[in-house]
């Protein structure tokens, strides 16, 4: 016996909210991307816990696809950050005000 299933879900929720707070509050584009990574990781944790609870492997299969999505998302996201840093000279989201938004 490890722990009740609810505790795993609770840990996943706390991690997800931490990731959301990170990507909302921080102004650095890299920290926003890191927040998205934390959220994806929390979703994977919930899937693995559910997979153990129902003794089915489908949850673990979904985590594999989450890994693929996270890897490609980070590649594209970092390329976009480097691209916009070359164009505007900054990675701070506050400095992106060319459209006067």
């Amino acid at each position, binding site marked *: 016996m*490890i*722990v009740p299933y*609810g505790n795993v879900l609770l840990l996943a929720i706390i991690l997800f909210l931490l990731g959301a707070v990170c990507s*909302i509050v921080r102004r650095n584009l890299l920290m926003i991307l890191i927040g998205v990574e934390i959220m994806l990781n929390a979703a994977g944790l919930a899937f693995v816990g559910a*997979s153990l609870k129902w003794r089915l492997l489908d949850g*673990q299969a979904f*985590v594999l696809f989450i890994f693929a999505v996270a890897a490609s998302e980070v590649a594209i996201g970092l390329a976009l950050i480097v*691209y916009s840093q*070359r164009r505007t000279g900054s990675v701070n989201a506050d400095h992106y005000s060319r459209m006067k938004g």
Partner: protein
Amino acid sequence: MTLYSVIFYVLAAIILASTVLAIIQRLLVNAVVYLILSFFATGLLFYLLGAPFLAVLEVIIYAGAIMVLFLFIVMTLPIEQPERRIMETIGQWLPVVILSGISFFIAGILIFETAGSRINLNTGMATPAAFGQFIFKGYWFPVEIASFLLLIGLVGALYLGRRESEKRSEDRQ
């Protein structure tokens, strides 16, 4: 309280502490190194929850590849003025913290009102061989889509990463 539950709570404490420390760091390199610790502990938690193959993948892909990629980009980009101090952006922190606190309480109530969440998890183990057979029997088409997604990511990153001079000389041809 068995040994496994003690391990679970210790790992959960490590994950939460290192993630919080990563979020509040002002220097990006420190944040990335704290996150490597967090993902490593998550990999151990995956192993505890009966997914040894995913635990290895977590360490290789998340802690290894993704975070090292972040580290490279952080070191490549020129150093900027650090962000404003946390206390100066309190107007930005406060609503987010309040709203996520509310959603956390609602989620906690929903979880512990349902009877299924009080079921104790027993230890189990999905061997990598069984997992691989399951994936390629039931999920062969999503695997193909995932490989296509990775290919598109590769091409897109290559396209975005070119320098302006190269782009101009290619457009001229």
